[in-house]
């Protein structure tokens, strides 16, 4: 399945909860950070440690247009996070759906 988180992890606990559930799932589940959720992938964010494991497994994606809008350069992200555009978002749902939005 494809999980999306759209809130900043410094403002809400949605990313925390999503990660706890994702860990218990098979390697076929993926996480895409969108909207204010993209701040979670900042190497400097408190969420970096937990997310790094996921990124190293190739299971973490970040929506590029939302990064650009927020002035977050790819170099500021944790290593291994893959940046995708909206077509990449669609493809993730094709490949890994159903979609679970951690709204």
């Amino acid at each position, binding site marked *: *399945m494809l999980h999306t988180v759209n809130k900043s992890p410094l403002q809400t*606990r949605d990313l925390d909860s999503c990660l706890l*559930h994702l*860990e*218990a*799932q098979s390697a076929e589940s993926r996480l895409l950070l969108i909207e204010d959720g993209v701040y979670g992938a900042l190497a400097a964010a408190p969420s970096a440690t937990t997310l790094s494991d996921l990124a190293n497994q190739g299971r973490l994606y970040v929506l590029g247009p939302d990064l650009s809008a927020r002035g977050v350069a790819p170099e500021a992200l944790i290593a291994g996070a893959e940046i995708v555009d909206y077509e990449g978002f669609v493809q993730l749902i094709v490949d890994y759906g159903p*979609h679970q*939005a951690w709204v």
Partner: protein
Amino acid sequence: MNDEFDEDAASTIKRFMFVNRKAPHGTIYALEALEVVLISAAFDQDVSLAFLDDGVLQLRKGQDAKAIEMKNFAPTYRALEGYDIEKLYVERESLEARGMTADDLVVPVEVVDRARMSALMSEQDVIMSF
């Protein structure tokens, strides 16, 4: 799953999960989620409800929304059984973080741990998150 949008599609049985993660009353999410659940009963799908994080608070006993002039919809969860919607999963860790147990809830539910909740989610065809 069908790649074509054909008339047979309506006869497919899918596993539908309604995921509830928000507290009631502060926003309308809990109430309007319940309205979709009730409608879904008419479609003969395999429907389940998941309550986790602040969503478990939706089922808390003793709610009196009339105190803030709102609709008291908590009793409606008890009506779900009459619609043959009987799979209500509540996450144990979420209850515990709020000092609650199954005894504090308005309906009988199946309390599951987080790992089981995660597994249930990944077995669905359609997830509606509220």
